[in-house]
């Protein structure tokens, strides 16, 4: 199904540029040829329908190729954050029963160690070099002898994507979305946002996340548009993670150079761009739509961006379970800047009260989504599914209200997530790791407002009796077990955690 959408674009725009990455430009014809060649290669090593393959990759063309190859094979893609450490990768690979990992040289050894410890037969495929005990991505490809896009694309509607949604307790929940779900999402989003083959979408957000995958990669390549992927910084042949602020000038130049028309982003990126000093000449006149997702966009960032570039940022609302569901395309965005807009085409959003009834205009209740793009539920969580998925609707747990024009306003979030430097972190996940430290009795993780780039991760720790615990012990423990961006920036030791008489942690007192 998803491949059908790509194939339609390939047939209509075969010579057009599908993907730009640094100096590399890949046409639709070339993209499809790579996709089909990799499919054959993956098939030759036994990957087929229902098989899961993990992508542990930064944003790169190979991500796009691998995604569509697996779609062509009716396989399942498990896109993971490339900054994850061994324990994190191991959990997801194991939970998803992945048959292969596609990664880069930088992470190949890490992935190899993960595979060795799992004691399962998992293929390792490396996209940018030859690594022992692995297959080279481009060597695995088996080119087709003839142009094959006259053949019919797969009409398979089954499982295509595993993503994990952070929960209020315990480990993240596995969300499975089908080819049908994703094809509906891309149709709804592109029709609502009016995306056409004339568009060029700049991808600065991770492709492993619903925002990057749906609103950048799928939106562009299913409509014959061009996706420009901000390339990795490479130093001495090794990709280096560089904070966005160090790439601001380059991103602004890229928008100009490639004539970018659509910029999907997150508040941190937009804030960094908005703070470009006024003496720097920037021409963003090609940009027709700039939208923010992932977290609430503050009035301050909206106004700064508008003042600096003359472009109003639109808010988009979505979730891992349903993809993008609403966007604010209001004719007067200044007046409704805090709204996430009206539901996208073919999406229904209701505000439901505690009694299960739909609430009137202005009343705050739970945001409930009905859409063909919606997952059927969390894997192996029957009880939770009974609460969150009822009557074909997803009860998001987020609180919101609607105005008389049907615009949605999000007023509260179910999950306490920390927004740090463009990453969203589940504090419970970090607490679960911290309490396993032999000297830690209790740990609570909160976000505290930082001077730059959002919140700072703060861990408040109660030590076990007679134990002396140092900051560095906690830091090195974290460093081995979690991605760098999750590691607490502030560690505070306390004698006890403040709690309500009912034992509820008083997080606000820890900030």
């Amino acid at each position, binding site marked *: 199904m998803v491949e059908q959408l790509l194939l339609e674009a390939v047939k209509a725009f075969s010579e057009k540029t599908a993907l730009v990455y640094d100096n590399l430009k890949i046409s639709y014809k070339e993209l499809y040829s790579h996709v089909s060649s990799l499919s054959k290669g993956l098939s030759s090593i036994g990957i087929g329908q229902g098989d899961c393959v993990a992508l542990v990759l930064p944003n790169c063309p190979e991500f796009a190729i691998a995604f569509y190859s697996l779609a062509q094979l009716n396989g399942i893609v498990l896109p993971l954050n490339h900054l994850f450490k061994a324990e994190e990768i191991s959990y997801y690979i194991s939970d998803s029963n992945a048959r292969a990992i596609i990664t880069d040289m930088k992470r190949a050894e890490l992935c190899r160690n993960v595979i060795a410890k799992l004691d399962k037969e998992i293929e390792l495929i490396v996209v940018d070099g030859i690594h022992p005990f692995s297959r080279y991505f481009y060597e695995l490809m088996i080119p087709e002898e003839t142009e094959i896009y006259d053949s019919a694309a797969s009409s398979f509607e089954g499982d295509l994507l595993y993503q994990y949604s952070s929960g209020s307790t315990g480990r993240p929940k596995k969300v499975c979305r089908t080819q049908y779900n994703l094809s509906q999402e891309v149709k709804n989003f592109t029709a609502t946002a009016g995306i056409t083959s004339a568009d060029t979408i700049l991808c600065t957000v991770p492709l492993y996340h619903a925002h990057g995958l749906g609103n950048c990669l799928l939106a562009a390549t299913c409509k014959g548009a061009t996706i420009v992927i901000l390339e990795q910084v490479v130093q001495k042949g090794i990709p280096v*993670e560089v904070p966005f*602020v160090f790439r*601001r000038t380059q991103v602004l130049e890229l928008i100009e150079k490639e004539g970018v028309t659509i910029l999907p982003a997150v508040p941190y990126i937009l804030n960094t761009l908005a703070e470009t*000093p006024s003496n720097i000449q920037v021409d963003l006149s090609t940009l027709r739509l700039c939208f923010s997702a992932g977290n609430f966009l503050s009035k301050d960032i909206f106004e700064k961006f508008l003042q600096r570039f003359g472009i109003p940022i639109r808010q988009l609302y979505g979730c891992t379970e349903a993809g993008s569901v609403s966007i604010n395309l209001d004719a007067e965005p200044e007046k409704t800047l805090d709204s996430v807009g009206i539901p996208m085409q073919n999406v229904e959003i209701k505000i439901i009260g505690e009694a299960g009834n739909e609430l009137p205009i202005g009343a705050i209740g739970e945001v409930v989504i009905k859409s063909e793009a919606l997952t059927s539920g969390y894997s192996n969580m029957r009880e939770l599914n009974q609460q969150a998925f009822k009557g074909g609707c997803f009860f998001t747990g987020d609180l919101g209200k609607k105005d008389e024009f049907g615009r949605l306003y999000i007023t509260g979030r179910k999950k306490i997530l920390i927004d740090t430097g463009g990453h969203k972190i589940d504090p419970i996940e970090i607490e679960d790791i911290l309490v396993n430290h032999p000297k830690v009795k209790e740990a609570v993780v909160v976000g505290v407002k*930082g001077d730059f780039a959002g919140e700072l991760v703060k861990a408040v720790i109660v030590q076990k009796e007679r134990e002396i615990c140092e900051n*560095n012990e906690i830091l090195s423990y974290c460093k081995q077990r979690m991605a760098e961006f999750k590691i607490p920036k502030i560690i505070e030791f306390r004698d006890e955690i403040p709690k309500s008489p009912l034992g509820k942690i008083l997080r606000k007192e820890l900030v």
Partner: protein
Amino acid sequence: MNSTEQIKQEAKEVVLAILPDISSEDLNEESDIFSLGLDSINAMTLVSNLQDAFDIQLETDEINFENFQNLATIAEMVEKKKGLKDEILRSTTV
């Protein structure tokens, strides 16, 4: 006047202060500070602290990967900003 070595030493202290789990031995002139943990959160703190420590104002286009990749490049940038190189050149040609 600050010598290049003094600038490097001072820059090292500024960097170490924001990367608490990195020891002085781990941070040499060529160490890639992005790999040592310089991320979005502490990046702007580094920029701000360097500006304060050396009494300089960095332009947006100077806040880039090339200038911040290691202590040597940071020191070079600071030196340029402070106009030290020009002064040294002038003093050696007199």
